[in-house]
């Protein structure tokens, strides 16, 4: 079953055409990764899925229902959880309050405590510091809180923008182990990731986005092994 269908999506910021006709399906239980150089339009696509940017044309469907005009909160309640590049942590709230906030997207409010418990099992650092202000957390801890919080709403679709950004290699291992565990649990994940070797290992399908145009990579492993291929799709080296 196709969980998320993006069809011919266009996004413009004034004169800048950031996304120019993107079509992408995400199967239920699948992991789709998008790679691409800076400014390619990756964040724009993910923001459009959560309803945070205005689209110029195209449609977005969740479980077959068109959600293109839905508010962000309605999408959250329909099962989409977004972890932005900036993490979106509320520094003036405690860690417990950050986690509990996501419970408002739960259909079954009574399960909130159990959901929070599960996130704390996945990210035990948070459990010891529940009553501290989130502003004191380090970058890696913030990322764990952001993902843990997204999971509290028990989302059907987890949307992650550059989860590895700014994290030390040791923390990365833990983070990607968690993401792999979520995948093996059957969660559907749409992730933008610059760390291609990790993205390729995690995802079922890898797409490259350049200048607002999306291309499916048949042999994503080449991103890791082939310098010319890598330079073409990531615009580096």
């Amino acid at each position, binding site marked *: 079953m196709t969980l998320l269908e993006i069809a011919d999506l266009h996004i413009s910021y004034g004169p800048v055409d950031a996304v120019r006709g993107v079509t992408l399906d995400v199967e239920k239980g699948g992991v789709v990764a998008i790679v691409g150089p800076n400014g390619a339009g990756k964040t724009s696509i993910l923001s459009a899925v*959560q*309803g*945070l940017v205005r689209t110029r044309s195209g449609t977005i469907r969740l479980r077959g229902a068109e959600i293109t005009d839905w*508010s*962000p*909160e309605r999408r*959250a*309640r329909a099962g989409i*959880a*977004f972890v*932005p590049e900036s993490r*979106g942590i*509320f*520094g*003036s*709230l405690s860690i417990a*309050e950050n986690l*509990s*906030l*996501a*419970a*408002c*997207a739960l259909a079954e409010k009574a399960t909130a405590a159990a959901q929070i418990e599960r996130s704390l099992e996945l990210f035990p650092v948070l459990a010891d510091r529940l009553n501290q202000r989130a502003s004191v957390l380090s970058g890696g801890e913030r990322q764990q809180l952001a993902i843990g*919080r997204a999971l509290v*709403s028990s989302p059907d679709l987890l949307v992650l923008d550059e989860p590895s950004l700014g994290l030390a290699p040791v923390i990365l291992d833990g983070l990607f182990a968690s993401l792999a565990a979520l995948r093996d649990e059957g969660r559907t994940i749409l992730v933008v990731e610059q760390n291609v070797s990790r993205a390729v290992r995690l995802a079922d399908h890898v797409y490259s986005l350049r200048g607002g145009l999306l291309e499916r990579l048949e042999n994503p492993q080449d991103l890791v092994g082939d310098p010319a291929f890598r330079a073409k799709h990531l615009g580096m080296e």
Partner: protein
Amino acid sequence: MAQNLINALSLGSLYALIALGIALLFSIMGLINFAHGELITIGGYTLLAFHGLPLAVAVALTVAVVVAAALTMERLAFRPARGASGETLLMTSFALSLLVQGGVLLKEGADPQSVNVLGSLGASVDVGGMTIGKLDVAIIGVTGVLLIGLAWFLRATPLGVQMRAAAEDFTMARALGVRADRVVATAFGVSGAFAAVAAVFLVARTGTLTPSMGLTPVLLGFVAIVLGGLGRLWAAAIGAYVLALLSVMLQAYLPTGLAAYRDALVYLGIIVILLFRPHGIAGRPQGVRV
């Protein structure tokens, strides 16, 4: 001295209710609501309309009417403008303010009307040689209860936590499922309730009503917010009490020859404070937090 302190606390309570009502909306939706003064005006005339009923009933009805007015303002004027720039929202609130003022003027006329809502609250009690007005005690006590109630609501209830999150980052809060409409309507409701209570206190203190009676209190509310600091909700309350203290102390200790300059000296004092603390007494340089 103690009598002056009571007086300052009472006046500060009045300012605090007004300043918090304005700051709450500003922190959540970046709205500088000039029409807040008209909520106070509506409260004043509602109280007049219900004059003769038992005080508690009249106050309850006044709160209900003003909250309804605040929710109507939100629904009809501000919701269509949601997400617009701060300037657009400011202009909307200006227009709304003039509109309501015009309406009150048409209905009630420009002449000041007087009303005595005090009843037994007009009396004073003797405490160790000091004469303390019962009204001042009531104002300080009721405001204290309301401020503690608001703090409890923001800390201990899911909706309160959602409001604090929305004040920090509205978009991210919505992305997590926080309902924008509910949070904004709640903020307007609380703002309206505080304006209603402030109106009752104001009318009790002055005994007069005019269609523009909301203007000065709202300007003082803005001054209190700037003085306290834009960074935090509670800074507005701190600013309100400091403003009242300045004003009452100058009133009490200024030589008679200088009394005419009291307001100028109050603002001079504020400027001096802001010179040393440009972000306000308790403000923070960055974004607005609840």
